[in-house]
């Protein structure tokens, strides 16, 4: 594919497709057509994390007890997650954990409709995938995974990486997903009494996936020592008043000082784990890992070493200031000059269809169940990656013959079901396309959209034009 001249129109398309969630009607006009309009629109979206916040009251789930839509707080989602089996005795009690997860997704979709570009939302999605969780691991995970994203990822999305890391690890969704509630210090009082020992799972994944990354110089001994440090990071049992909530249990915690990455950690209790997480969060290998992964996700399958080094430098100098890192990535020339040869991932592509059709937040939330079908079909449903590595970023994973065929059918089916009464009442698709991507739609694509007399089929074509599929 040839390198398109970087006109303001091309930059706008690039912002929408590479860094955002696709254009909204009137969005291109609102961000403007000056040389730096697209960049500035992205920068404006990360001026403050406030627009990315989802309030507890924004998440509504049906409760049979209240016979109404209610919002659940942390105590409640944890309790439901732990006690759903008891509720089994009383058939059809609601909300079920899957209802809670669906409500969280619906609130997420609603939030996706607001911004003009969606870069801040994409950062949320990036970090949520970085700390990927498989919701079907257990009821507790399913009931709390949305809370983790809403209460830990979103508030820290422009904050410090170390804060996000510590928040994620002190959340029941991650503790339960990676089995740390089954991990006992073998020399701890409870470990000795129950003859139980540590579980390496969480410690290993923090090192391999969340911080230093595969290929960094940590050893099996580091993993074991870190696992011991993390003993006691657990959740309250089902019968406890705070069932399912994270807590540190000193009676499970392996006593003593431990060496990790050649540093000794002699703190007591939970402070020891927090100190290790702080060390890891600010380690050069972590900086490189995050820099590499951001570029891999947003820009290219092959991040240039000098760019990785530069972005990692920002991460280290700012002690993991995620706003500074995101800003630096946006300001790299390659972020805009890299040709748009990769396929957009299914999730942002699906969301961009709702945005293009002008759905508001409430309408988007109503699509949750339908999106679950289409995102499962395209293997990109939120919180459904089984393994903790998260959905991959490399193009080859997403771009294959059946995937393209499927996108065509998915777009057609989604579009026709997303409009009231199966009838499109918006602007003619050809006009809409010109509004969404002014000056950036090829003459061939524009002509093809205009050729279709059926508006829904014309929209179907729009969403599988190269302009809508490439990033």
């Amino acid at each position: 594919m040839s390198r398109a001249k970087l006109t303001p129109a091309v930059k706008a398309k690039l912002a929408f497709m590479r860094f955002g969630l696709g254009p909204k009607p009137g969005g291109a006009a609102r961000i403007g057509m000056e040389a730096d309009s697209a960049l500035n629109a992205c920068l404006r979206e990360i001026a403050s994390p406030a627009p990315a916040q989802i309030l507890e009251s924004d998440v509504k789930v049906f409760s049979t007890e209240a016979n109404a839509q209610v919002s659940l707080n942390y105590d409640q989602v944890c309790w439901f997650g732990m006690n759903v089996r008891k509720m089994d005795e009383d058939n059809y009690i609601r909300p079920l954990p899957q209802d809670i997860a669906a409500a969280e997704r619906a609130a997420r979709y609603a939030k996706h409709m607001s911004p003009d570009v969606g870069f801040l939302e994409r950062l949320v999605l990036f970090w949520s995938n970085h700390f990927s969780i498989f919701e079907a691991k257990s009821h507790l995970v399913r009931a709390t995974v949305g809370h983790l994203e809403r209460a830990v990822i979103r508030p820290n999305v422009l904050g410090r990486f170390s804060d996000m890391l510590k928040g994620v690890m002190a959340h029941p969704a991650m503790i339960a997903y990676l089995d740390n509630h089954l991990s006992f210090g073998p020399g701890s009082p409870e470990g000795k009494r129950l003859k139980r020992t540590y579980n390496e799972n969480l410690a290993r994944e923090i090192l391999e996936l969340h911080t230093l990354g595969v290929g960094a110089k940590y050893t099996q001994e580091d993993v074991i020592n870190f696992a011991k440090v993390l003993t006691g990071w657990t959740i309250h049992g089902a019968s406890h008043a705070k069932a399912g909530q994270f807590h540190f249990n000193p009676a499970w915690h392996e006593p003593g000082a431990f060496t990790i990455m050649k540093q000794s950690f002699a703190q007591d209790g939970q402070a020891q784990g927090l100190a290790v997480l702080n060390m890891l969060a600010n380690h050069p290998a972590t900086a490189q890992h995050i820099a590499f992964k951001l570029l891999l996700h947003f820009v290219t399958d092959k991040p240039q070493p000098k760019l990785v080094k530069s972005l990692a430098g920002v991460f280290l100098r700012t002690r993991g200031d995620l706003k500074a890192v995101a800003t630096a990535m946006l300001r790299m020339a390659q972020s805009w000059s890299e040709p748009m040869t990769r396929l957009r991932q299914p999730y942002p592509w699906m969301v961009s269809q709702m945005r293009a059709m002008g759905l508001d937040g409430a309408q988007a939330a109503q699509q949750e169940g339908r999106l679950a079908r289409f995102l499962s079909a395209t293997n990109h449903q939120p919180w459904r990656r089984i393994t903790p590595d998260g959905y991959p970023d490399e193009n080859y994973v997403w771009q294959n013959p059946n995937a393209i065929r499927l996108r065509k059918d998915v777009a057609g089916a989604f579009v026709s079901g997303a409009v009231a009464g199966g009838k499109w009442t918006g602007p003619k698709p050809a006009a809409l396309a010109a509004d969404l991507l002014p000056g950036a739609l090829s003459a061939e694509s524009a002509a093809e959209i205009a050729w279709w007399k059926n508006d829904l089929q014309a929209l179907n074509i729009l969403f599988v034009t190269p302009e809508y599929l490439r990033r």
Partner: protein
Amino acid sequence: MSDHDHELPPVDLRLAAAAEEGCEESRLLISRRAMLGLSAGLFAWSFMPRHAEAAGTEPRLLVVLLRGGLDGLHVAVPTGDPNYQSLRGPLALDPATLLTLDRDFRLNPAMPKFKALYDAKEAALIHAIAPPLQIRSHFECQYNLESGYPGGTIRSASNGWLNRLLMELPVGNPVKVRGALEVGPTPLILAGEAPVMSWASGGWPRAAELDTRLTGLYARTDAGLHDLLSRGLAAHKLATQGASASFPPGTPSPLQSAFRGAGRLLAAETGPRIAVLNVDGWDTHITQTATLTSNLGNFDNALDDFRIAIGEHWRRTVVVCVTEFGRTAAGNNRSGTDHGVGTVAFLAGGSINGGQVFTDWPGLGQKDLNEGRDLRARSDLRALFKGVLADHLGVPQALLDTRIFPDSKLVRPMQNLLRPTSTSASMFRSASPSPSSPAPAAADLFGRRNDALARFRQQNGAG
């Protein structure tokens, strides 16, 4: 061009599959979805070569993952075991209604087509088998079954044993060229470095004209998309079209469509040679007899349709159907069973040394049961897989013991599963790897998660 999607029910198969993903250790979820019945998702294979080679005489392998934990005691019923009737109570099936397999076992009557294959010595059963990890969790046991690792190393791999097999096949081997195919959202068993591609057995109704118009648009604007869409449409056509006269009349169930598609693809000269199908719906915590009568019947029809679809290649085919665990030997108080351990596996295909139930029967006496509740597993699913891979595909034992099923030297491949006369062309015929030629397995270096980062760091160092 006719649009065969319109022949299929407009229901999305993966909708049901997605619902099944909620499958946890809970009766609650089960009761809500009992009516969903069986489902199958989507196919994948690595790629479609552009040029046909000589008609494929290579062996075919279909792995069917029966997700949810199938109750082996309800399928191959141990009518010869003196404790069967008393232990099962109301769940016990009346021997007179069952189909006789041998002196000790009878088959659930919902599977007459499988019985016909069994009588033709083209199908067999393995009883009292389970994956190495025996902890009654769907998630962990499926992971264990598909990763091919011993029980203790949960989530140590993000690739599956079938994908590792693909990685080990000698370069240029026709099977590797054709890759594997899969049904369901990329199950772990096929996940990994070797590219896998998918075909959806369902799909949504659409205007056929859209295919041709869009292909034309891509031809004018994006050569890459044009190539991909053309191949995707060709594969879809291959899987959904072809002789259908010999199938039973009537609209095929979604499961039948999936199995027919798998058969057509494996039969195609330019198609894959290895396939995986997910079949959900076996987690029978409640009303087990009714559910299994329906689901086993549906499965029986679908499996036989696969036989018809694959045609003359049936004789060089092995179908292995496995599940992550069996169920409690006694029923629960809801006419169902809860998670257990030992269960059955099915084998079918023209290469099978059929007409027998392979088992070292552990018995159903109270002290014979695992923890007093489950049928014990006397064999390891890895032994079954290794036996099939060794005898059907010619995979060398050293590879089976190390790379494909790590640390499994002590798990001996099952013998005599295939007919001695079945001389399927070995996939390794020209390239038996000698121990001194350590092909640097890419899987070892990069098969794990974060391969992109691993590669980057090989060149540039870490941090």
